């Protein structure tokens, strides 16, 4: 399946969900991303790990163009990201993102957080958007919190709302930027459980995370990034049992202890 050429001429989505090609990015003189090449297949679940400052989040944020870059190409669902705002919006509409700090809208209720984009971007009628939102809130198991404001929820609940909010746009691809790093330990599991369930639905997922248990259970491929480069890509079995690169071994020694 992985050898098949992409087929974007039909109405169905291309086999390659995300293609990153020779990507370089600098912050001033600092070379944050160095020659990143990556193909993410439709339905694939990828976990990106590595030491902090290695460029993981930056790479993820390039995929929906929250960051721009100086060299290379990114193609998402067959659309090449350029400076054209129309293309950027089109890609963002079909790519959901979950942030480390949740970034819920504090002035809106949980339900309003979820219906905002369907109403304003997809132009759904309010009632339909609310039905959609309640459906996803039920899936992340907090429908009873719909009328509350985010500040009244625990961190884990807020992150699940953030996942529901992203899902309400029916994205083809979900990006998770360290979704459990800001959570108290007892709340990590409820968010990971939600993500595991989501993974079983077959949605394409790119997850920046240090949760190695999650990576082992869910990932199709695990990537180690360090110094702005992809150091190693492998299936989870091989990645954990038989890491090839010295830096991967060092990293795994650190996080697995």
């Amino acid at each position, binding site marked *: 399946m992985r050898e098949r050429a992409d087929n974007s001429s039909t109405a169905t989505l291309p086999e390659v969900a995300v293609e990153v090609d020779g990507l370089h990015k600098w912050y001033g003189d600092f070379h944050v991303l160095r020659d990143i090449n990556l193909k993410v297949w439709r339905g694939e679940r990828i976990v990106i790990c590595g030491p902090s400052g290695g460029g993981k989040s930056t790479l993820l944020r390039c995929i*929906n163009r929250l960051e721009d870059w100086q060299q290379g190409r990114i193609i998402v669902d067959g659309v090449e990201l350029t400076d054209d705002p129309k293309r950027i919006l089109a890609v*963002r509409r079909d790519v959901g993102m979950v942030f480390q*700090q949740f970034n819920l809208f*504090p002035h809106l209720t949980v339900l309003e957080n979820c219906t905002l984009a369907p109403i304003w971007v997809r132009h759904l009628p309010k009632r339909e958007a609310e039905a959609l939102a309640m459906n996803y809130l039920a899936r992340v198991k907090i429908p009873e919190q719909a009328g509350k*404001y985010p*500040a*009244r929820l625990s961190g884990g609940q807020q992150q699940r709302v953030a996942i529901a909010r992203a899902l309400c*746009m029916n994205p083809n691809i979900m990006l998770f930027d360290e979704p459990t790093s800001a959570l108290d330990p007892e709340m990590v599991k409820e968010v990971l459980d939600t993500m595991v369930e989501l993974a079983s639905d077959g949605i394409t997922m790119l997850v920046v995370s240090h949760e190695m248990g999650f990576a082992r259970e869910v990932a199709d491929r695990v990537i180690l990034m360090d110094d702005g480069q992809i150091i190693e890509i492998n299936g989870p079995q091989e990645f954990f049992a038989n890491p090839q690169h010295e830096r991967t071994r060092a990293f795994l020694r650190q996080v697995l202890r």
Partner: protein
Amino acid sequence: MSAISDDSSSYVRRLPAASLKPPAAQAGIFGWLRANLLSSPGNIALTLVCIVVIAWAVPPLVRFFLIDAIWSGADREACLASAALPNPGACWAFVRVWFGYFVYGFYPAPERWRVDLFFAALALGVGWLARPRAPRRDIGAVYFFVALPILSFILLHGAPLIGLAVVPTSAWGGVLVTVVVAVIGMVFSLPLGILLALARRSELPVVKVAAVAFIEFVRGVPLITVLFMASVMLPLFVPERLAPDKLIRALVGVALFSSAYMAEVVRGGLAAVPLGQYEAAHALGLGYWRMIGVVILPQALRVTLPNIVNTFIGLFKDTTLVFIVGIFDFLRTIEAARADPRWTAPNVTVTGYAFAALFYFACCYGMSRYARGLETRLARAGRR
């Protein structure tokens, strides 16, 4: 009662502790006095000083403005010192006689019902929008921002087609002009200020430079200068008959002036919205204006609400400056009336200014209280 004894490290409560009343010295009115007025020697001294100041200042004021005040009369004779009235107080008769002039200016008496109707329509609009629980505030907004301006123009200016005689703006005056200038200034300065603030944060250099230049120029120039430029310099470049109405020129000047200040206030609020909010809105695929309208501004304006009202209060008081270009606002009508030879008397002047102070205080304090109420309500909503 059942203290933990020193030698035991374990303890189990057998009886629930009853809820008792607080000690008398800390409750009720004595508790309040103690906590707020007499909590420390410094506080006691301050309380005493305040009592002395109040005892010294308040009785003469009450005597002048209420007890010795003259409530009726046809001219200055009623308010002058005489054998029967050796120490005349405030001359409220002056305010009573001139009241119509203070409110309407030279607006012709038979047409003044139109101004009253305008005040009523305005009060309805303000009440509709200002009450958080009022029904259908969306209709209220349409009424206030679309219907009311048209209605007001027809009412105040006149429409010969439907039998309303034209009243030129030179005949407008008093509270009418003050209210018109203030309301137009507020209604235009907020959206203009928001646009300027957004422009100032724009990534497009031309937009940004234009906004910065405008804001910094206006903020660097006194309002009087702006008004002078609007009313004196404009006719130098444009023939007088092509130049817009004098009041409109002043209105434009006031609105542009306050929008520059509003822009800086709003900019502070925009800066207070975390970057993550922009990113979340971007990630959901919201375009720029939707993001600003439904995600960023609601949060930014909430933070800046006290400052916005503060700017409104400043604007309201600044409307008095339009007298400099010959427009008869409320304060100017009092000035004109007290200079009338039939009414020249020292206590008339004091009464006129006191009346003006009362009016401005009532309006500004009202705005301030309303903002406080709104703030607490929004703070409560934020914690929900």
